[in-house]
Structure formats: structure tokens, C-alpha cells
């Protein structure tokens, strides 16, 4: 048979060709000078339509391709005018007028007018995707949005249903869902009444520093800079995002110089990079908080002594220094650091003796907790530490490990006993967390107020609901800060929530990469300032 010798020759030739091909790779190991190459895990992206995107990675894209009426300065994280030049509020606090900047265009070339801005906000409300509530909480609905949001000349008028704190509106207008989308362009690509939602998944139609060139789910995206950006041209001509799910792989790529930035490294990788002169680690906080929640349908979780005992049974600092090193910082209030009125103090620490005596006072014998945990490595580590320290205090903890979406369903149906969860704020205003942790207008099962974490835990915050609702209407900023401080204190002393950490964000950058801002707890990443 002549097949084998032939195959042998072909095989030898192929192997030789492959080896030859592999040889010159050293030549290629550098990223192009005009391109920022990023390795990140971006499988959280559900949509790149600003009216729908509300995951971290999707909002990064939105932040660089669109702008809002009001923006957050990426370097100072302060509010600043965006597409609106100035604004004013009527005496009754119900009508806000925004004067639009002139001369700004969308990537299509269409001018940004007050009418275009009105259409964009109306579209987000009418599409009614998940983040739409950030806008509809001002009293806007599919039926009334055309009369509540109107344009006249260069002025955009927003009418609200209540005299909310002006900062509340401005903060919400910086959210991705309030981005000004070029509706005229988008509607040309409408399919089955989707208002261009599907088209916006692989295209952008905004005023941002970049234009989306391609997006492949779970693979990556490419963005090109757009000359004439109103905040100044982006320094890098292209952004090349590569979805690299494995952190160790990201680290290798960064060390080799095949990527400029790696955004999802583990504590082990960060420690490994510590001595590398070619790499800098940039640390800041994210908005996500880690918390334990106890369902008050279970009688023992209504016992304040027992709740208190558990607060003294968590090794906050120990976990942050070891298993969660670099990934979190200890944090014990429901507003993340960086938010208006956030409390940074840490009143609780691990104190087994105190916990034991509190349990004795509570009158609960041999307490037992079933803790639901997502099957992710970091969550399991935290849960095991809690199981251990609770055990020392005399509380038996059973871990119920499951898949994230499945546990979320259980949580929303109030079927859990206790759960370890994270919560990311939706917009950079304290109301985002205050409303969910400290408000529960109707604690009945029928209410199905799944959006309120208090409801999910059958927790009736009593007077806190009204206090939180008053804080969002408080027009004096200093008073507002005080009100949120008070709410956080009361919540951490009485609620069935134990906030344990705030997310820390570590970005590893090649040493020549400068001016990368992640947006901290309040905003998404800004690519347009980066140089290398």
C-alpha cells in the first residue's frame, strides 16, 4: 500500500512547514503603536444598545461610543456638562431645561440637536429594556414620554412627576441608558419594531470618541477613533478588545507584551506581576459590594441579637488580606465608597467571644444557617471562611452551591434561607442602593417587588422606607448626605443584610501605557485618554 509512505512524506513536509512558520514569531511580539490591545473577560455583554446594555463590559463600550447630556469626568469622577451646555430647574422642581451644545455631530454626520436628544431618551423609555427603570423612575412611561420629554429649538425640557433632588436626575442622566443615540440613523435599521436594537449590537450611532467597528460575542470587539471628538480626539486610533476568559493567560500575554492592558487578573496573578518592571498595577474601587442576606421568612433572622452575632462572626479583614487579596476591600455600608454620602468606617470585626455571648442572649439554641453560594471559586472561598468563623461562634453553616442564574431565581422568589450575593449599583446616585436595601413599600408575597433586595428577604425596614424616599427628594445636597449616612447606619445595625466587601479593581498595564481610567465605582472605562 502506497498510502503510508506518501502520508509520511506529506507529514514530514507539514511538520517542517509548521516549525518554519513558528520561527519568526518573536518579530511580532509587540502591539501596534496606534492600537490599545486589551485582554478582559467580556462574556457578560448582553447588548451594546445603550438602551439595553447594563453589564460592566457592555457599558465600557457604551461609554466610549456615546455621550449623555451630563457626563462624569473620567479623571476627577465629578459631574460635568456633556452634550448639554447648561441647565436649570424650575422653582417647583418639576421641570428641567437643558440647553444643548452646538456643533456636535453623531458619527453619521447628523447634528446633535435638542430634538435628537429627546428622541433618544424617548426611545430608551419606549424600548423598556432592563435599564429603562433608571429613566422611568422619574415618572416617564411609554404613554407619556412624548409629552414629558420635549424639544424646542436648542432646549430640551424634561418634566418629572415629583420634585426630585436635582443631583438625583443629573446622576441618572450619566447612566448608559441615558446616552444620546442617533435615532434617525438607528431607525433605518429597524427590524420587526425593535427600534434598531439588534443593529446596535454590532454598530454604534453616537457622539463618542470611538465608533464600533466589529463585535463578536465572547470573542472581542474593535473600535476606531473618530476625529473631531468634542472632548478632544482619542489618542489611540484603535481599541482591540480580546475576550480572554482565563486570567493566567491574560497575565502571560501582558508579560509578553502582546496586550497592553489586562483587566481580570486573580490575586495570584497580581502577586506574580508585582516585581515586573514592565508592568504597572493600577488599583481603584468598583461599585460592586458583597453582602450576606438572610430571609426573614425564617424566624431566627428576625432576632436582632442573632443578626448582630453574625455581624461579629465574619472575618472581614482576614479574607481581604488572604483569599480575596487585591480583589476586594472591607466595606460595611450599603453605599460603595465613591458615592455621595457613603460611609467608609468599619464598625464590625471578627470577635468570636462577643458573637457567642450575643447568641446566648438571643435565646437561639444551636443555630443553623443554609447559605446559598454561586459555584464560582471566589464565592466558594468566602463562603467557606464564613462557614468556618460562624462555626467557631457556634453557628452551623451548610453551603448550598449552585449555578448563578438558578440561585437568583430562588432569591427573587424568597425561597432561600441565607445567601452570599453581590450587588452593583445602576447609576451613580445613592438612591440606587438605598432604594433597594432600605425600602420595601409592600412586604406581601403578592407584591412581587423583586427589584427591592429588602422584599426578597421579606424584610420590612419600617421607617427607613420613608426616610429613603425623602432623601431622594431632598434638594439640599448637604442635608442629603446626612440623610444617607443615617440610613446606612440604621440599616447595618438592624437589617438582615451584612455588607462585607466592596470590589477592588486591578488593572495591569504595560509600563508605557498611561492615563487609563476605569471610572471607579461610578462610571465605566474611558479609553480615549489612554496613551502609550
Amino acid at each position: 500500500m502506497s498510502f503510508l509512505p506518501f502520508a509520511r512524506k506529506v507529514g514530514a513536509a507539514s511538520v517542517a512547514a509548521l516549525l518554519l512558520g513558528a520561527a519568526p514569531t518573536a518579530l511580532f511580539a509587540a502591539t501596534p503603536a496606534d492600537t490599545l490591545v486589551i485582554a478582559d473577560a467580556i462574556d457578560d455583554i448582553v447588548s451594546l444598545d445603550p438602551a439595553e446594555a447594563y453589564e460592566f463590559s457592555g457599558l465600557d463600550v457604551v461609554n466610549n461610543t456615546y455621550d449623555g447630556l451630563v457626563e462624569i469626568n473620567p479623571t476627577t469622577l465629578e459631574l460635568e456638562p456633556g452634550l448639554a451646555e447648561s441647565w436649570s430647574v424650575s422653582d417647583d422642581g418639576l421641570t428641567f431645561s437643558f440647553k444643548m451644545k452646538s456643533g456636535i455631530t453623531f458619527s453619521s454626520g447628523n447634528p446633535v440637536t435638542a430634538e435628537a436628544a429627546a428622541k433618544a431618551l424617548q426611545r430608551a423609555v419606549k424600548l423598556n429594556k432592563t435599564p429603562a427603570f433608571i429613566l422611568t423612575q422619574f415618572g416617564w412611561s411609554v404613554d407619556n414620554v412624548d409629552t414629558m420629554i420635549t424639544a424646542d429649538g436648542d432646549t430640551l425640557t424634561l418634566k418629572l412627576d415629583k420634585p426630585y433632588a436635582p443631583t438625583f436626575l443629573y446622576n441618572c442622566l450619566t447612566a448608559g441608558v441615558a446616552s444620546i443615540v442617533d435615532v434617525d440613523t438607528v431607525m433605518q435599521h429597524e427590524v420587526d419594531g425593535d427600534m434598531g436594537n439588534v443593529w446596535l449590537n454590532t454598530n454604534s450611532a453616537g457622539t463618542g470618541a470611538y465608533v464600533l467597528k466589529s463585535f463578536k460575542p465572547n470573542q472581542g470587539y474593535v473600535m476606531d477613533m473618530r476625529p473631531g471628538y468634542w472632548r478632544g480626539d482619542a489618542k489611540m486610533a484603535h481599541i482591540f478588545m480580546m475576550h480572554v476568559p482565563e486570567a493566567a493567560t491574560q497575565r502571560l500575554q501582558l508579560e509578553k507584551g502582546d496586550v497592553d492592558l489586562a483587566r481580570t487578573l486573580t490575586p495570584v496573578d497580581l502577586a506574580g506581576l508585582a516585581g515586573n518592571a514592565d508592568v504597572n498595577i493600577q488599583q481603584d474601587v468598583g461599585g460592586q459590594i458583597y453582602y450576606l442576606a438572610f430571609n426573614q421568612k425564617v424566624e431566627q433572622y428576625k432576632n436582632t441579637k442573632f443578626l448582630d452575632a453574625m455581624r461579629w462572626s465574619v472575618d472581614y479583614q482576614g479574607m481581604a488580606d488572604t483569599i480575596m487579596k487585591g480583589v476586594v476591600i472591607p466595606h460595611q455600608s450599603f453605599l460603595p465608597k465613591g458615592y455621595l454620602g457613603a460611609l467608609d468606617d468599619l464598625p464590625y470585626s471578627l470577635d468570636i467571644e462577643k458573637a457567642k455571648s450575643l447568641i446566648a442572649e438571643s435565646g437561639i439554641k444551636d443555630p443553623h444557617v443554609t447559605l446559598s453560594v454561586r459555584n464560582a471559586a471566589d464565592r466558594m472561598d468566602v463562603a467557606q471562611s464564613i462557614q468556618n468563623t460562624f462555626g467557631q461562634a457556634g453557628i452551623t453553616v451548610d453551603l448550598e452551591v449552585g449555578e448563578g442564574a438558578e440561585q437568583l431565581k430562588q432569591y427573587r422568589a424568597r425561597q432561600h434561607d441565607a445567601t452570599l450575593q453581590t450587588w452593583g449599583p445602576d447609576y451613580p446616585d445613592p438612591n440606587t442602593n438605598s432604594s433597594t436595601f432600605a425600602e420595601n413599600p409592600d412586604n406581601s408575597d403578592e407584591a412581587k417587588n423583586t427589584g427591592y433586595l429588602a422584599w426578597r428577604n421579606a424584610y420590612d425596614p419600617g421607617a427607613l422606607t420613608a426616610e429613603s424616599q425623602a432623601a431622594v427628594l431632598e434638594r439640599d445636597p448637604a442635608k442629603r448626605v446626612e440623610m444617607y449616612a443615617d440610613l446606612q447606619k440604621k440599616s447595618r445595625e438592624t437589617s438582615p443584610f451584612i455588607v462585607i466587601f466592596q470590589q477592588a479593581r486591578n488593572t495591569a498595564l504595560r509600563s508605557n501605557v498611561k492615563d487609563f481610567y476605569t471610572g471607579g465605582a461610578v462610571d465605566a472605562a474611558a479609553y480615549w485618554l489612554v496613551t502609550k
Partner: protein
Amino acid sequence: MTSADLPDAPPSHLGRLLRQVGKTIFTLLITFIGLLAVTFFISRVVPTDPVLSILGERATEAQIEATRTKLGLDRPMFTQFGIYVWDALHGDLGTSIRTKTPVLAEIARYFPATLELATLATILGTLVGVPAGVLAATKPGSIMDQVVRLVGLMGYSMPVFWLGLMGLLIFYGKLGWVGGPGRLDAAFDMMMQFQVTQYTGMVLIDTALSGNWDMFANAVSHIILPASLLGYLSMAYISRMTRSFMMNELGQEYITTARVKGMPERRVIWVHAMKNVMVPLITVVALSYSFLLEGAVLTETIFAWPGLGRYITDALLVADMPAVLGGTIVVGAVYIGINMFSDLLYRLADPRAK
């Protein structure tokens, strides 16, 4: 003479062929529907809620209901299945819940990456595995045999995740002999996306067809490590099987006869024995190939390789059933296709097989 007296006319060649084709299509259809039914119904008893996984924590009950209705998840399960099969038979595998892209288009993007990797891995695995197995079989107990056994055992037993990372660390990180994760360097990847005609979706072939040899070399440098890793795993399997097939053949009388007649040992092994080893070996290689074509999830994850295995796994984790079912159909088709192909090869290798 009546027609009843005539002997039955032998079925025409064309008729036989048609009947066979018809039978094959019928079997395929049943296999596919069975495959779909199993995947579909398993997916429905899994507690993950696809709606919640795409809408996330903040979704209101009204939004959840609206999405459920839009996706047809509020209908009876059998109706959903019926609709799905009907659409699938018309070439519509549905739209991915998560990405809102037609599943067929997504698979067309992911499958070539897997095909390219699996093919190269199988070629490498076979080229090394078969001679290694033969060598081991001809000198059982020798050092060569021990080495082949040890190397094979390592391939079986070492976690692919660890091997992949070590491979990357050594050959990419330290030595710099190969390209890193992904199918191309960033610069080439952008050129590939926007400047090169994608005939097949396989980077090696498309860059070669477009005559872009720098890019081809870069693609080779990226694929060589994951392909070698997967090739090593299939080599471990192929060499063990080759060894045992060959040992079996070498004990047969016709081999003794050939040796007694003074035939050179090389010829005895590589021609006479190999002819008979080929038949079961085809099955082994085909099985190993189709296994790799399902997509090697861990390897694809470490090497940031956008392949079918990762696609199906990612989809499964968010209960994106159209994507999972679409992927399953492709994997099923691959199995069936490779089986048919190896049947064909049997006939070439063994004239007795008709």
C-alpha cells in the same frame, strides 16, 4: 407466459443506490430528531431560567413575562419542540437568546476555528501516534515500548488545563517560540477582520488563499501549540491502540509465513500487518477526530480560541437553548459525517467490506 412466471428482475444499480440513500437519509432524520428531543427535554428540566440569565437581577416581573412570551417559552413544551424541529428542518436553527444573532451564523463563525484546530491536531496525533505504536509493538518490553507507554500515559492522565498553561508558559512565555493565545496577533487579527476575504473562516486557509504569508506564518505560530497539545492527547490514544492492534496482527500465522519466506521485517510490518491494522485504526482516528471536533472546551478557554466547545458551554451556562441545540446538531452531524467517511475508508482499506 404471464408476467408472474418471470423471475424477479435483479434490482437496478440505480434503484439500489436510491434505496440506500433513502435509508441513510431516514436514519439521519431519526437520529437528529432523537438527538434534538433528548437535548431539548433535558434543557427544559434544568432549573436555569434563560430569561433571567439574559435580563439579570434588575428585571421586573413584567419584563420577564414579556420576554418569556416573545421567546415562546410560555407555550406547552411539546408545541415548543414541534416549532423548533419544524424550523430546524427548514434550515432555521433559531436565534441565540443571549446574542440575538442567528445560531447558524454564529456556528459558521465558531466551527471553522474548531475544525482547523481539530484537523491539525489529528494529523499531528496520527503522524506521531501510529509509528510510535508500531515501534512499541514490534519490540514489546524494550526501552522504546516503555517510553511510548510512559508518554502515552502522561497524555492520558495529565489534566489538559495544566498541560495547556505549562505549554503556554514555556513555549510562549519563556522561550517565545510560538504565538500567544487567540488565532492571530492583534494587528493581524484586525487585518483579517477588515481586509482579508474570509472564504472558509479557517485562518490558515484564508490567509494562504489570499497570499498573505506573514499573516499565515502568524496564524501557524498561534495554532501550533494548542494543536500540538490536542495532538498529544490523541497521539496517546492512537499509539496505545495501534500498539495493541499491531501486537495482535504480529501473532497471526500469515505474519509467521511471511517471515519464514524471508520477507524483510519492514515489509512484514508496514505492508502486510499494517493493512489489517488500518481497518480498526481508521475507527480509532475517526473517533478521536470527532471527539476533538466537539470542541475542546478547556483548551479553547486557555488559548482564548473561539471554538465550538466554548460556544456550546457558554450557551449552556446561560441556558441559551437555541444555541445549545444548534451546537448539538452540528456535533451530531460531525459524528455522523465522520462515521460515514470512515465507512468509506474501510471499503478502500479492506476489499472484503462491501
